[in-house]
């Protein structure tokens, strides 16, 4: 069972998390979608593999529901050295801090010892590709990279 954590302001990240979960089901992997504001950090630290989804807000900041998740990780500094994670970010390249939200979160995860699987997925709202298509493609690229080393 893979936990997919999402943080959103406009609902787009939740939609992306839903799409990633749906694609994982298609690929025969169970997934559970968890809003970051309800996330249990201790439970996170015990996982083998998680997926993080967030957008960027305002001037490169974290969305309202991602910020407390980020702050909690930063304050408690759990040892994540047994954790692998994949990251999917939503942004709008019209703004120069495009994609910062997911990068800020990913860097903290790596600092805490977690290891990233695959490329950070990016949906750019300024290009007219629907989130579903980008999320699906990304999920299809990520899942094989996780399969062997980790029970998914």
């Amino acid at each position: 069972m893979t936990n997919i954590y999402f943080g959103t302001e406009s609902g787009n990240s939740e939609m992306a998390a839903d799409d990633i979960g749906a694609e994982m089901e298609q690929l025969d992997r169970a997934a559970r979608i968890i809003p970051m504001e309800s996330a249990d950090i201790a439970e996170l630290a015990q996982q083998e593999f998680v997926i993080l989804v967030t957008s960027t807000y305002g001037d490169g900041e974290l969305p309202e529901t991602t910020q407390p998740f980020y702050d909690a990780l930063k304050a408690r500094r759990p040892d994540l050295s047994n954790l692998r994670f994949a990251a999917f970010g939503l942004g709008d390249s019209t703004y120069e801090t495009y994609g910062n939200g997911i990068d800020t979160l990913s860097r903290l995860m790596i600092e805490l010892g977690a290891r990233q699987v695959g490329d950070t997925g990016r949906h750019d709202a300024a290009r007219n590709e629907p989130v579903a298509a980008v999320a699906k493609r990304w999920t299809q690229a990520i899942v094989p990279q996780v399969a062997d080393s980790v029970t998914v």
Partner: protein
Amino acid sequence: MSMPAHQTSEALLPWRNPAFRANPFPWYDVLRREAPVYQDPSSPKTYNLSRYHDVAQFGKHPAMSNVAPDWVQRGPWGMFRDSVIVKDPPEHTALRRISNHWFTPKLARQWAEAATEEVNRVLDGLGPSGLTEAFRNLALMPSHHAMCRALGLPNDGYDTGSDYMRDAMIGLGAAISAEEEERCQVALTYLLDRVDHYLAEARKNPQPGAVSSWIELAANGTITDRQLREALLLFWASATPNAAYLITGGMEIFARQPEVLELWRTSPEKHPAILNEIARLHTAEMSIERFTTAPIEIHGVSIPAGSHIRFLIASANRDPEVFHDPHRFDLDRPAETPPHLSFGLGAHFCPGTNISLAETSAVFDTIAARVKRVELAGVPIYGHDDRSARYLRLPVRLVM
């Protein structure tokens, strides 16, 4: 009689000034004129050389070493304990031979073909407006694709790798902040993890390519495991952005000076001159560093052994003493003009030089054949720091 190195209370190299980082050339001009051997007041063991002749001569000097003395705090890049970049001959020679073995003309051709495959795919997929972002789509990803093919690694994407590589390179700057150092550390951790992942996969499922052969060399003790990992990191992570900078620089020149693209099309004999001028004006790694193993004197300045020398390659490449009207793209420079230094010099000059030029040439051939005109479709966005130059975005319209 020895003269003191030029010292002044005002920094002639304001490393953290955003205007300097965006465009250091006005400062380099002052430096070459007034302080060709410049001892940075914030770092008095460092001597900065900015003139072409000094860089060219002393860059290859036998007393210049890649091995850092004990006083140097290497920061996150200190992890590169065993790689070629911190070794001197003869050990360096032995290690270097390993990559030279792979970097043959045949490989260069295959590399160029792989890159043009990607470029053709991008051109095939252009919309009716012909708009595309040239840095990522025509330079970075084609180079990465070709690199993966040659190494025998899967192409899992390089967007994240490229972002982290940028953070890592910023960590080589002359005066980085604590935050930049932290980000560099995270970046190198990420990149090394990717490398370890690829090595583990390659051990399980060997593919034809350089990595499998290097794994064997590590298995039979020719190189250590550490050297294997560090070599792969240098290739997988750091080579591609430099090649991409060269290609993108060419695309910007084609956009601003369409007669150059026309010349590429009509006059193959001009290709070397065109490539050289593009490379001279687009120096991806703007400085290189060495340490003196013996006392040395430059322009009357005595430099003790164990000093840190920074060769400002980008400055040398625009030295008006050597290149008349240095900021101009000029294909008619006199035949005796010395070469640009963008690929470095001496024993450590870029081992991928031929490959990079072959790839760039092939990409330009593809563009010249399929595209009538390259136009800028927006403002180019650069992301230079004080040590490396790079594009973040070059929006273009390709008129087919």
